[in-house]
């Protein structure tokens, strides 16, 4: 395998693709690009599944995608290929196409990546870095790569030590990096349902009586549980309340309970449904499995600062680290 990649050559190949497409397309193609999406994944990861996820994201978030496949090992290796992703929107005659670049980089070549990526990002558009391998986040070269990005998406749920992962992400955020965490994104539906409970004026009026919040979770969802507890704590603080907060890991599944004198709200996942209990009344709603596609679809839609997440991450890291030291 080659150990060098020339960004100029990649850009020429991309331009040639468009010229070729223009010659052959019957009704023409429309080039669409709203961002550069850099995806970093292990080479061992199922390429076709990841390819399907990226292809599914493109119609809604057309992007120049740079897929970096990481090869563990000391041998220095770097190679590339370019191709297009096209689709025909329903009822339209023109194809829409996005550019894709695939790079293979060994650990030893990671230091060269920023100089390759920098000329390849599309000018004036956001750069989203989706880091799918936890080990990369711990490598010294990661910081340099992350600095190219407008936003870095990670998944603390894939890290072994949830409090440590949250602390590292909060620290990166403190240094000005805009981060996102899929462990937080998985909670959107839960948070939405909890918010919906308090659209009812009677329930909102009884919120002031809430004195205790308890979140239980399995080990796999520990970081999500810390987020849920932190977000609830912050929301209640905004309402002038400071209830006792408890996160209990090692349970079967994730569950949150807000309890007070006149109000008890419980959200729990029961198979494919999310059950919301308010006092004695339970409503169930279908809970779609949180696929990578759905999670990234949501994250790619948010390029500006997400102040609710930033505040929650800080709180979650503080709660998680202090519970660990207790």
């Amino acid at each position, binding site marked *: 395998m080659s150990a060098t990649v020339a960004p100029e050559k990649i850009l020429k190949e991309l331009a040639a693709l468009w010229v070729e497409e223009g010659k052959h397309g019957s009704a023409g193609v429309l080039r669409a690009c709203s961002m550069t999406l850099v995806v970093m994944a292990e080479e061992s990861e199922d390429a076709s599944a990841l390819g399907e996820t990226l292809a599914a994201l493109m119609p809604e978030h057309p992007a120049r995608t740079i897929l970096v496949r990481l090869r563990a090992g000391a041998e220095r290796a770097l190679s590339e290929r370019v191709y297009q992703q096209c689709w025909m929107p329903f009822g339209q005659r023109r194809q829409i196409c996005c550019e894709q670049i695939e790079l293979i980089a060994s650990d030893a070549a990671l230091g060269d990546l920023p100089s390759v990526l920098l000329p390849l990002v599309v000018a004036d558009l956001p750069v989203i870095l989706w880091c799918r391998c936890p080990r990369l986040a711990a490598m010294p070269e990661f910081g340099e790569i992350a600095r190219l990005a407008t936003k870095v998406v990670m998944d603390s749920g894939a890290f072994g030590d949830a409090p440590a992962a949250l602390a590292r992400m909060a620290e990166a955020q403190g240094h000005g990096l805009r981060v996102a965490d899929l462990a937080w994104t998985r909670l*959107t539906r839960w948070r939405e349902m909890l918010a919906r*409970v308090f659209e009812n004026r009677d329930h909102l009026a009884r919120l*002031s009586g809430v004195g205790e919040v308890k979140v239980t979770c399995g080990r796999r969802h520990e970081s999500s549980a810390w987020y849920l507890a932190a977000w609830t704590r912050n929301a209640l603080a905004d309402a002038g309340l400071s209830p006792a907060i408890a996160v209990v890991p090692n349970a079967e599944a994730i569950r949150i309970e807000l309890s007070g004198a006149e109000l008890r709200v419980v959200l729990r996942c029961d198979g494919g449904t999310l059950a919301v209990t308010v006092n004695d009344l339970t409503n169930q709603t279908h809970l779609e499995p949180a696929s990578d596609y759905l999670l990234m679809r949501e994250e790619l839609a948010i390029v500006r600062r997400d102040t609710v997440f930033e505040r929650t991450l800080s709180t979650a890291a503080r709660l998680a680290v202090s519970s660990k030291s207790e």
Partner: protein
Amino acid sequence: MPNDNPFQDPLRFERQAPECAVVIFGANGDLTKRKLIPALYRLAYDRRLAAGFAVVGTSRTPMTDDQFREKMREAVEKFSEDTPLDEDVWGAFARGLYYIAGDVKDPGMYQTLAAKLEQVEGERHTGGNVLFYLSTQPSQYAIIARGIGAGGMGKGGGWRRLVVEKPFGHDMASARELSNQLHEVFDESDVYRIDHYLGKETVQNILAFRFGNGIFEPLWNRRYVDHVQITGAESIGVEGRGAYYQEVGALDDMIQNHLLQVMATVAMEPSASFRATSVRDERSKLLRSIRPWSPDEVLKNTVPGQYGPARIGGEDVPGFRQEPGVDPAAQTDTYAGLTLYVDTWRWAGVPFYIRTGKRLPKRVTEIAIQFKSAPLHLFNRDADADGLNLLILRIQPEEGISLRFLSKRPGSGMTLRPVSMDFNYGSSFGERSPSAYETLLLDAIIGDPTLYTRQDMVEASWAVVEPIQNVWRNHKFDFPNYASGSWGPAASDEMLARNGHAWRRP
């Protein structure tokens, strides 16, 4: 105790609709089947409705709840163009559908309705919130509002809102009278006058385009804009609604509401915030700034038209007077072309040309902003390249924005030709756009009246339209004056030609 829900996160999830019951008067009508129920079902499909949601349909046709559910299921299957019927979602949605039969003129019907709402509240936990939707003949609006009041449903444990469809009166006096009658039961803040044009994504996008970008607004005034053309064209005729249409006409049907609202959106001043009151205040101010015409001026600055028979695509098409149910001597306008001026510092002297009509060559709604030409012509230009700095905001059918400007033709010499830079809404966003009724129904349930028309806006529109209406009604026109499939009467072209302008051919 907090007044606002502290758990909201607008960046991640939209504000949820509160629990409520929607009462639809005219539930067996076309609008309910084609638009309202498909829109509500789509909101349920997108999980935008609360668990405590119900629809109570009412009309004169006797039906059980189950028969109503079956009928509405057929409507969703037939008219939900881009939403599959999901059995689980439909099952949950259909359990919240109820029906009562009755005549809106019968006081007993409102007692039955009140009892039904009580039952629904117990079964569906709708929180006492009720949205009344009047999808009936306009002549029944006041009767129904009074019935709601007499039945004790105008006030209750939760909020009560009333949605009314256009027309909001047929002139200034009747519009005022209608408002007064509705206000006997509902406060103005609880009256939602629906104009589905304002719910269209692309009409809302006009605000985003103008006020979200810094580069266009500095050009958006009399110094740079030569004139503005607003077109709302339909290719179809009256489609069996001749008897109704001959009483209304194009001016009242399209311009008094839809196109004047579009014009207000295009020309209004930036509002201080995107809150309902601010945006509606600015729209209202703009409408009040439109110069009303004197009777003499009406004849110079407006053109009514009526389509005659023609052969289109090998098919004979009847003229308006040959349509079923239409008086063979009808003086109804099926076309209206107006020149309007806005008396503000921003728009003084800039003509706004508005036209709408039936049986025009194609269905298209768009706004064309013609900018002034460059002060000196340095280059050779192709013959049709005059005045070609044009911004087109396309509302339907292919939503988007195009900017036309001049570019050098390839080759030696400096000859310029117009080129177009296009933004296509559908290609740039893979997401599905909600229908106007989805947007507007959800807004009404949430209590956001930004996209609804207020009483003062309705009256300001009538202040523009009524003088024209009066002259047209008292004048005998030589109808038909345009052939089906053409772009309208020659007099309309002449009206623009007097100002050195010409209608675009969209």
